[in-house]
């Protein structure tokens, strides 16, 4: 065991294997302990990625209210755990502070929901919503963790105009976004979204943690790599996509992807070949299967180990505007955290960039495999042990971990 020194007081173990009654609230419990500046540890690979907290009245109280399972540990019991962990693929990572969380989300309601917002609300982890004006004004520097979900950073409204151009919510969204772009001094929405994407790229480069899901992953990469290329169809900016856009993309600036190919047709609901499932293109769509989490060495690779802590290793897949990542488009340094079983696709990827790090998780809602526009949001009280939602919450606590040099 490398990092943690034994804490002096009595402790509480928050098991994260099948003995836990509410896995998702356990993250909120740990976050709240960090908010109170109490020391905590993340016991990687031990009992599903258990947490070790100080035995305080506040922690016990919150655990009782939230229905989180706890086990009291005296000094002897804790020593036995540490001895067991020293001999296997385990590690204890100190968690030091509650990261300040920002969610990039429009102020208006959309007819879809955001799995991260749902997860944080349910777990009781506070966050601040930011949108284009705040990002352009440079507010991202105030936060340690930024989440993106369904946004289309190519400025093409996820190409929903193909199916929803007559829907009031879509018309409102277009009008609102166009007005916002003008207000912020941009000629069109793609220009605004590229500027926002660039701010986010710089945020990570300067040490921020970025977590993206669904369509935000793919379009952020396209917007960054295509910063100086017209990659949007005429619907969005009044001019067709540059016919040579593919050749002009600068993938060296992107986080995860290289050599991807843009979808040139404005009438095909796909952005590029980064997404392996192409859910909205009937002829190309791949069926859902399962995806498997990689097992990493806790001592040698603590960061990927943290991000993949779970009580399940094989999970039911779920669609999103971007569901998965074609492996052939990933940069060599990209860490695949989960792969689609039997397919050349990654589901969950991670990497470092400058002083910061990013994580992409494909799909929209881990508990709603074919989430559709207008569908009701998932009620997580019905899925308190959702293994898919755990992946999201792993990312929230990851910036809380004490930084230590990677051993590989």
């Amino acid at each position, binding site marked *: 065991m490398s990092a943690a020194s034994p804490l002096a007081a009595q402790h509480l173990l928050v098991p994260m294997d099948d003995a836990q009654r509410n896995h998702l609230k356990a993250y909120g419990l740990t976050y709240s302990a960090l908010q109170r500046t109490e020391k905590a540890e993340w016991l990687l690979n031990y009992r599903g990625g258990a947490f070790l907290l100080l035995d305080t009245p506040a922690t016990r109280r919150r655990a009782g*209210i939230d*229905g989180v399972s706890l086990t009291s540990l005296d000094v002897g019991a804790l020593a036995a755990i540490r001895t067991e962990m020293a001999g296997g693929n385990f590690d204890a990572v100190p968690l030091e502070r509650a990261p300040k969380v920002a969610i990039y989300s429009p102020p208006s309601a959309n007819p879809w929901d955001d799995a991260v917002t749902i997860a944080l609300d349910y777990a009781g982890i506070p966050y601040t919503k930011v949108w284009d004006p705040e990002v352009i004004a440079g507010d991202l520097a105030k936060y340690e963790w930024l989440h993106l979900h369904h946004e289309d950073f190519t400025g093409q409204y996820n190409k929903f105009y193909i199916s929803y151009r007559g829907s009031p919510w879509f018309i409102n969204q277009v009008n609102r976004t166009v007005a916002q772009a003008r207000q912020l001094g941009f000629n069109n929405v793609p220009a605004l979204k590229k500027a926002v994407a660039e701010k986010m790229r710089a945020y990570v480069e300067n040490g921020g943690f970025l977590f993206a899901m669904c369509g935000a992953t793919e379009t952020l990469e396209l917007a960054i790599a295509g910063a100086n290329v017209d990659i949007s169809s005429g619907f969005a900016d009044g001019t067709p996509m540059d016919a040579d856009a593919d050749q002009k993309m600068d993938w060296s600036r992107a986080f995860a992807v290289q050599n991807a190919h843009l979808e040139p047709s404005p009438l095909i609901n796909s952005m590029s070949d980064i997404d392996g499932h192409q859910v909205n293109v009937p002829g190309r769509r791949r069926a859902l299967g399962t995806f498997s989490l990689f097992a990493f060495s806790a001592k040698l690779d603590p960061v990927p180990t943290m991000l993949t802590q779970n009580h399940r290793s094989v999970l039911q897949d779920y669609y999103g505007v971007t569901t998965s990542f074609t492996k052939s488009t990933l940069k060599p340094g990209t860490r695949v955290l989960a792969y689609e079983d039997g397919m050349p696709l990654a589901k969950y990827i991670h990497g470092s960039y400058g002083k910061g790090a990013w994580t992409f998780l494909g799909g929209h809602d881990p508990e709603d495999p074919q989430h*559709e526009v207008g569908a009701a949001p998932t009620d997580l009280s019905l899925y308190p042990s959702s293994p898919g939602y755990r992946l999201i919450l792993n990312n929230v606590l990851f910036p809380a971990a004490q930084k230590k040099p990677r051993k590989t």
Partner: protein
Amino acid sequence: MLARSWVLSASLALAVTVPLSAQESGTSTTDSLVVRALDLEDSKPRDAAVLYRRAFSGTGMMPALLGLERVYTNLGMIDSLLPLVRSAIRADPRSGVVRSVQLRTLSVLQRDDELTAAVRDWVRAVPGEAAPFKEYARLLLESGRSAAADSVLTVASRMVRDPRDFSAELAQVAAAQRMWNEASRRWRETLTQTPQLYQAAIFALSLATGVARDSVRTNLTAEPVWLPARRVLASLELIWSQPRQAWLAFTGVKADAEAVAAWKEFADEADARGMPVASREAWAAIYRKTGEAASALRAADAALASGDAATALQLASAAQGVLSAPLGLRDAVPVRLRSLAAMGRAADALALVDSVRPKVVPAQLQLLERDLMWAWLRVGDAARARPLVVRLDEDEATALLAIYDGDLDKARLALRNADASNTLLLSPRALLSRTTLPTSKEIGAAFTALARRDTATALTQLLNTATEIGDAAPLVLAMAARLLTASGDDARAVPLWTRIVSDFSTSPEAAEGDLEWARAALRARDGGTAIARLEHLLLTYPSSALAPQARRELESARRMAETS
């Protein structure tokens, strides 16, 4: 689960195929071998195998092959089938049955390469036909490889004459992949060609959960209105425990003979599932369409079971108008009487019994008087009930009457052998289990007042009792508080809930006290108090059955506190 449905369909096919073959060939030696083998399959499978082998060499190759597949599977020697299959394929390369046996056998043996080669060989033998792909996709689905099945069918759709042949398989694949929108759309298409598969559609779609069910509903109720799709949805709603939605699935369906047949089938299904709300609506609709008294009576029974006594009375009266006088007396009057009793119209019940008293035999009269006795007991009229209770001597009735009299010891005695399911006795039983008092006029008066719906008197008597009833005090206080809460009198209810929580904190009612106190606070827009009470409940009674509900309401209370 999915695999089981395919196995089931295969077994049905066998069950039909084999006896028919035997019947058609009459007394031929080969067929008698098959029949003898069939008899021996369970008891002497090795002897059956010998007979099937002999039959295989004769004219009964097909049933023998299928029999051998079953027997060899049970004997764990399915690989012995392959040489016979190859021989059969040489004899008839286009035989779908033989090819299917080959594929199943190779699949069981997990010889994937040979399986793929066998599929290709079959495709070459029957170019443009869907059968090889269907069978292969089915096997892949059975083994849980839905993505592979999807790929096979996608490729096959471009190779066959009519891609619609795959509609059922594609629907199965979509369901296996939990793509409920596509699955329900495809099942609807499938049913237009093969309506007999509607049970398979119900089974496949029943596994949809949560909001995914909405897309199933949308597809099955899409225009144009189509009875088979609505029938499937109605069954699904029953399986999903949504009886009201189940009947609404038929909304817009033209009420013709076909619809009536579907309604009857649905009503029987609802009855079998114990869902009288759905059954009531269906039988009532059938009655309106056909005018059949039997349907009206089924509707009335279901209405009574669902707690809708007024509708039951109406339907039973209508049925009596249609039936002959003797049948009306026998079938409709008891339902009318039970309806009146359930509605608390004991005087009308008495009038009904008096009106038929001269026309019925003693045994029938005794049954009617039993219902009349419960009518009086239900409204708390001990004086009118007493002679009937004494004469009919039923434990449950005796116990309830004793409770009204305040004779708790007598009630205990009668309840020893009483039917525990009688809902009128739930509260008395709970009370008696918590007190050792032999008698209590106040308790008798309280229960009598409750039966008479005299809330004010009941409250007074319950509160008077609370001080002298020992361990049952929190139960009595909770009964009083529930009455006040139900009538919207939070100002008087909250002090009682408070008293239960503070003075009887270890009682079974304490968690309920916290929850109701919190709810009253929420109604008063006092989020702080609500949060405090719910947190107290969760921390003090963590294993209470109310804890999950308290956690949900705590979220609401927090939102309220934030917004205010």
